[in-house]
């Protein structure tokens, strides 16, 4: 579980750790409801079955949207191992998100004026208060530091910083495990 690894620092989890995650992080439930809705959308083609299945998740979805102040685009394809670090405030409108991404607080990922939305690679870390928009591709293992405004594509294993965002470091082949900060 990504939450246990990234937020609690555990490699193996027991039942009580699982309970901790369930009750401690409301963003976890937001993700659960999003995954349920996405699964229903991809699994069932019949309109009425879809509606019937989605009605169960609607109330929970709305509740946790309001608790965490965050929204997720219903068509966003989020790979397993994703985690929201922090209390939320995320507006997430990406096309695809790769394995093992972490998104911190108050992040906006969304469209530009032509309705193009970004794609994130694997093991991307997006720092708090940053904005990513437009038709861009972010490579694997990219670290986006705090308060970045990013509108251009980034190759693999880079560190991005600033407003407007520019590449500060290249080829950081070792992904730092716990440290997002500089």
């Amino acid at each position, binding site marked *: 579980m990504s939450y246990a690894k990234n937020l609690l620092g555990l490699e193996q989890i027991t039942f009580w750790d699982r309970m901790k995650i369930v009750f401690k992080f409301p963003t976890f439930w937001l993700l659960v409801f999003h995954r349920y809705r996405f699964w229903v959308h991809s699994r069932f083609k019949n309109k009425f079955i879809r509606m019937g299945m989605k009605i169960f998740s609607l109330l929970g979805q709305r509740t946790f949207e309001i608790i965490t102040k965050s929204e997720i685009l219903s068509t966003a394809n989020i790979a397993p191992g994703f985690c929201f670090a922090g209390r939320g*405030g995320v507006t997430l409108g990406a096309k695809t998100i790769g394995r093992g991404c972490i998104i911190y607080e108050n992040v906006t990922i969304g469209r530009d004026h032509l309705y193009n939305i970004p794609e994130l690679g694997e093991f991307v870390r997006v720092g708090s208060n940053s904005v990513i928009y437009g038709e861009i591709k972010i490579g694997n293992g990219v670290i986006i530091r705090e308060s970045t405004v990013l509108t251009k594509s980034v190759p693999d294993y880079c560190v991005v910083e600033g407003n407007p965002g520019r590449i500060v470091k290249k080829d950081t082949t070792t992904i730092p495990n716990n440290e997002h900060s500089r």
Partner: protein
Amino acid sequence: MMENIKADLDRYFKNNSRSLNPSVKKKIKIIGENYGIYAVFVYRFGYFIESIINDNKLNLIKHLLLGAYYMLNFLVIKMFDIRISRKAKIGKGLYITHFGGIVISNCILGDHCTVNQRAQIEGDDFSSNAELSHIGDNVWIGPHAIIKKGIKIGDGATIAAGSVVQADVDRHCLALGNPARILNKNFDNSILNV
């Protein structure tokens, strides 16, 4: 008040369905999904109390209404994290996209504006009108943008995402960066600001 609310609703319908008259089902869906519209409604209600009822005889009614307004405003702040000062003078057709972290303090906002999530317009309740920030019509304020107090922004200007505006912005300009500089002097924001 009703005119303004109608204009606001029209903007929400236009932005979310690309037609002026969507079906009733679609309308209900739009109102349910966009939390910003509740904040706009509560703001209009608060401004209505302040502007219309200045009669001494109606003082009690005014205070009762103000009580109701404060309760609604508390709910909006706690649930959606949108703070709109009731002293702010906002023209008709305000569109708030998404929710969370939006602060519109006392300022003068024109018609047909868009405010995105986590945008902040600074100001205070006790300074005069000349000291506040003046924002024209058809202005698009991007996500995470901050506009300082006492800034003048012309009609049709665009404040890009994440910019911190510390100097005046002329008409039809595109401001970007921290501190904001003008990138394009003739930018058409009609695609953004539907």
